[in-house]
């Protein structure tokens, strides 16, 4: 699609233009990390850090805690519609791709989640490709890449003192209206940057056959070994851009029915009223997490349910590395 360009120092101007008709959400600097927030001025944007935001992009569409509805004196009161127009600037392609995976859950044919759908329809996502992937990144291994366009309306490629902007969707074209086009030679340069970034990333493992192997070792000792150091803290799932499990609880004092992120790494997650728990130990829970991403997602939509963002690798307090877990599974042979 159409490629346009702006000088790097013209970015604030473009963002201000977007801000006239939408909330602009972008990564801002926090103590030791970055987070997506509504910005009031383009100077707040923090793009120089190579690392992704701590919370994934999904949090803007499936908030960690969200009011489904309120009730008062036994009466149902609908929640306010979350339909403000938003331009999300500075998303990474792995996070945007994750949105397309979650769309298959929340916008499943005949079974829409209205909260997700409303937010998705009201947002445009402007992503920045990663010309310097991090050590923990492995998007190319799982079928994505540092300039993956899925889930994006605009893809931005940093080139010398400029940004090359490619409209991926009609929403994206609207955002890029009246900007100067990229010359043919510059376009070639952009492609080279994109290809170079992808080629710099080493394969973390061979994804072919992962699903079948995990099914084959479902009852094996592998799980006992691989979960040994896991604390069951659940950070890998909370910060995962494709994890979507939630709990529904009533906040009695506020009179709200709320959904909160939940995690398959907790024992109460699957504990039944009878006392029976189908996943009583970390073994079953670790197995569920890995198999969901690398087997069940494939069964559903033939795509790995991991976009290689590397958050679970970076934030695991005991250094468990999902790439290493998959490699060990692939090498596993029954004694």
């Amino acid at each position: 699609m159409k490629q346009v360009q702006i000088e790097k120092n013209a970015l604030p101007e473009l963002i201000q233009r977007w801000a006239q008709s939408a909330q602009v959400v972008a990564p801002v600097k926090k103590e030791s990390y970055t987070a997506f927030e509504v910005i009031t001025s383009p100077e707040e944007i923090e793009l120089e850090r190579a690392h992704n935001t701590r919370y994934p992009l999904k949090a803007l569409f499936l908030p960690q805690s969200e009011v489904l509805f309120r009730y008062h004196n036994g009466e149902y009161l609908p929640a306010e519609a979350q339909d403000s127009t938003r331009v999300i600037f500075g998303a990474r392609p792995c996070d945007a791709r994750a949105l397309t995976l979650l769309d298959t859950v929340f916008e499943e044919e005949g079974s829409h989640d209205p909260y997700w759908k409303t937010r998705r329809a009201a947002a445009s996502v402007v992503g920045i490709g990663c010309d310097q992937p991090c050590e923990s990144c492995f998007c190319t291994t799982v079928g994505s890449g540092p300039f993956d366009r899925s889930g994006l309306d605009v893809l931005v490629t940093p080139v010398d003192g400029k940004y090359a902007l490619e409209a991926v969707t009609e929403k994206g074209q609207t955002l890029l209206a009246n900007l100067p086009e990229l010359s043919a030679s510059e376009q070639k340069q952009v492609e080279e940057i994109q290809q170079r970034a992808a080629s710099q990333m080493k394969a973390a493992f061979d994804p072919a056959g992962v699903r079948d192997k995990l099914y084959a070792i479902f009852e094996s000792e592998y799980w006992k070994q691989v979960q040994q150091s896991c604390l069951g803290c659940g950070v890998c799932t909370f910060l995962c851009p494709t994890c979507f499990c939630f709990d529904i609880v009533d906040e009695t004092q506020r009179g709200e029915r709320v959904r909160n992120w939940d995690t398959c790494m907790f024992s109460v997650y699957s504990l039944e009223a009878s006392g029976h728990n189908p996943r009583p130990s970390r073994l079953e829970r670790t197995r569920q997490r890995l198999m969901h991403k690398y087997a069940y997602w494939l069964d559903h939509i033939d795509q790995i349910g991991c976009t290689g963002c590397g958050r679970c690798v970076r934030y695991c307090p005991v250094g468990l590395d999902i790439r290493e877990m998959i490699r060990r599974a692939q090498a596993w042979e029954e004694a």
Partner: protein
Amino acid sequence: MHKNGNNPYEPMPMRIARAYYESNDRSLKTFELVFEREADCKRFFEAYNPGQFCQLSIFGKGEAPFGIASAAWEGEFVRFTVQKMGTFTQAIHRMKAGDPIGMRGPLGNGFPLDEWGGKNLVVIGGGCAFSTLYALTKHIQHPSNRATYNELCVIYGARNSGLCMYKSDIQSWYGREDLQIHQAVDVPEEGWLHHVGYVPDVVKEVAPSPENAVAVVCGPPIMTKFTLPVLTDLGFAPETIFTSLEKRMKCGVGKCGRCNIGPEYICKDGPVFSQAELQALPADI
């Protein structure tokens, strides 16, 4: 924001028309709910298939899933039998006729009745899991449905006679010519005229023929576990044995993630599965 009907989390307003204890020990209570809005009622009965479940909802207490225990022809109400177990079921047990309550559903797939036409049906239930089988049996009993199916054999066991549900109705089934009923209690009891023993043993004793038949098994996991091999020994193929599963469920519409067995969600792809389908899934039950 959302009109009713397109927000899957919005409970329909219902009212408890009848509430009565189902068991002598008051651990089981039956509720018959009626609709506050005509449109909800219409939509519910257009969609309802025996074997489905609903999320019952009490503002301030949350929600929990229960199998539907009534057939559509019984009237414009929805029946549930609730065993007192946790916080939600304790709260609902305190409710009485006239109280408002919320309901979402019907949810899940229900029994594959279209595939069962012309077949002999063997219905095997234990404990309060018999509720959806009661709905199934009631559905089949209706004169306009009865001719669709061949013979109907119902085997229903409870720990003791005090825990037997739908007593007076089931008692009247003994005189009927359109079905065979076998009731059992676990241990001998004075005055008990029917089978004594665990459900798997009773199934062995009754020995239903697998010829042109399907078997439906709903009960506590331990009962199901020991009944399936009995059916296999009798000659039932895995494709002809059906069971209904339960797991902790929150949304009931395949979004919240927690009720999966392998790639299947109990709430959306189930709760009814054939044994053949279950055999293809990882052992995560």
